[in-house]
């Protein structure tokens, strides 16, 4: 990794695919190095002149981006075999040649663009919200202790980027596992002073096939989470709530 010093050209291999049903192919691009480049600025460079290293004309690479400061999750892709946001993937700190692929766990749209709506579906499944209909003034909600607020703040940083699902070996087509992100969001809203009222509903939504019990504890999710959310802690927390729910029949 001592290629951090001045380099003449950067070589980037990008996995290309015209559409969901088109065959995938790899294209190699060569760019002039500029200090401070990140993967996004490389893609922008390629867009200016979409031509492979061999001089073949090609289409500009499609990708998604938004905040460019690692808080939106839109530009998540697999860089050198590891999932991360491309906006904070600095060329100086990466191994060369760069290898860029779309995430593999979501339906592909085109090139580096994937459809992450399954994550939104998962949030709906676990009811990751506080239901207040807003038809009349309920007055101020219960107060949150600073400790609670701090704990919940960490979980609230989830930007639904998909890193945890991409790195999770238990999240795959053979398995119904919902993945760490949605479980952690259920925990976030279960810990909300008002959201608590519906805690049982959220917990029960994860007592199904693909629920929290399917986690295999490879614990890659915490390793790759760009927001350092304690995802495995959330899963275990949910497991405890589920155990309590499970023994709830003893109260009857």
């Amino acid at each position: 990794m001592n290629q951090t010093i001045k380099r003449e050209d950067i070589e980037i291999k990008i996995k290309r695919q015209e559409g969901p049903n088109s065959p995938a192919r790899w294209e190699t691009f060569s760019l002039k190095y500029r200090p401070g480049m990140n993967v996004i600025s490389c893609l922008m460079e390629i867009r200016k002149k979409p031509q492979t290293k061999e001089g073949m004309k090609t289409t500009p690479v499609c990708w998604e981006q938004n905040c460019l400061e690692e808080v939106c999750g839109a530009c998540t892709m697999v860089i050198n075999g590891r999932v991360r946001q491309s906006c904070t993937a600095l060329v100086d700190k990466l191994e060369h040649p760069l290898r860029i692929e779309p995430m593999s766990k979501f339906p592909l749209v085109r090139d580096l663009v994937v459809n992450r709506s399954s994550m939104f579906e998962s949030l709906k499944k676990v009811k990751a919200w506080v239901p207040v209909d807003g038809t009349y003034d309920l007055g101020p909600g219960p107060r949150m202790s600073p400790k609670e607020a701090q704990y919940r703040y960490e979980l609230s940083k989830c930007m639904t980027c998909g890193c945890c699902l991409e790195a999770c070996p238990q999240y795959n087509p053979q398995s119904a596992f919902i993945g760490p992100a949605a479980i952690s969001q259920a925990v976030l809203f279960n810990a909300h002073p008002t959201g608590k009222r519906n805690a049982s509903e959220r917990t029960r939504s994860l007592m199904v096939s693909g629920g929290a019990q399917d986690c295999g504890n490879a614990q890659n999710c915490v390793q790759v989470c760009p927001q350092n959310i304690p995802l495995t802690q959330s899963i275990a927390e949910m497991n405890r709530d589920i155990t309590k729910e499970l023994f709830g029949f003893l109260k009857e």
Partner: protein
Amino acid sequence: MSESVAEKIDVKHFYLRRIHSLLGVFPVSIFLVEHMIANAFILKGPEAYNGVINLLRSLPYLIPIEITFIGLPIFLHAVYGIYICYTSSLNLKSYGYAKNWFYFLQRVSGLIALAFIAYHIWDFRIASEVFHFEVNYEAVRRSMRVPWIFSFYVVGLVATMFHFANGLWLFCITWGITIGKKSQRISGIIFSVIGFALFAMALQSIIVVRG
């Protein structure tokens, strides 16, 4: 994809997974510990060991006990375990973290342990009934003196003990006993020590019995 996942969703599966986790500890792990203690009577000589075997074999309701508390739980744990292997995937090359390796090893060790246990049950429980010979110190010695059987036992024991120790660690997470990083690290240390100790006991028994 989301539709097919929704179709698959049912509550039954949740119970199966939790039962799988529970069976691994109650009774399978408990039996494993009991078994290793019984084995250790090898250290006290042939008479003591044969005495323990005869005591266990003379238990009333032996067959129902064996089926209810040993055979059936291991069988159910194994069947569901194989299904878990099917629903797993590997990505060690990209994410070579220790816990990810353990995830892989838990599945591999389970499969090896299953093969080992199947052979072991045949060799020391079923074959003796079928061919009418007695299982005792001498019979165990004869088996353990065969190099390939001994090697298979060492491999089988490594797999079984890893699966046991890591399984207990997983059990504590699956049931929400250890939640945070720190408690999971501490339980990891505790179960590693227990796993190594039990492995050492088992190894000593099969080495000593060779004479």
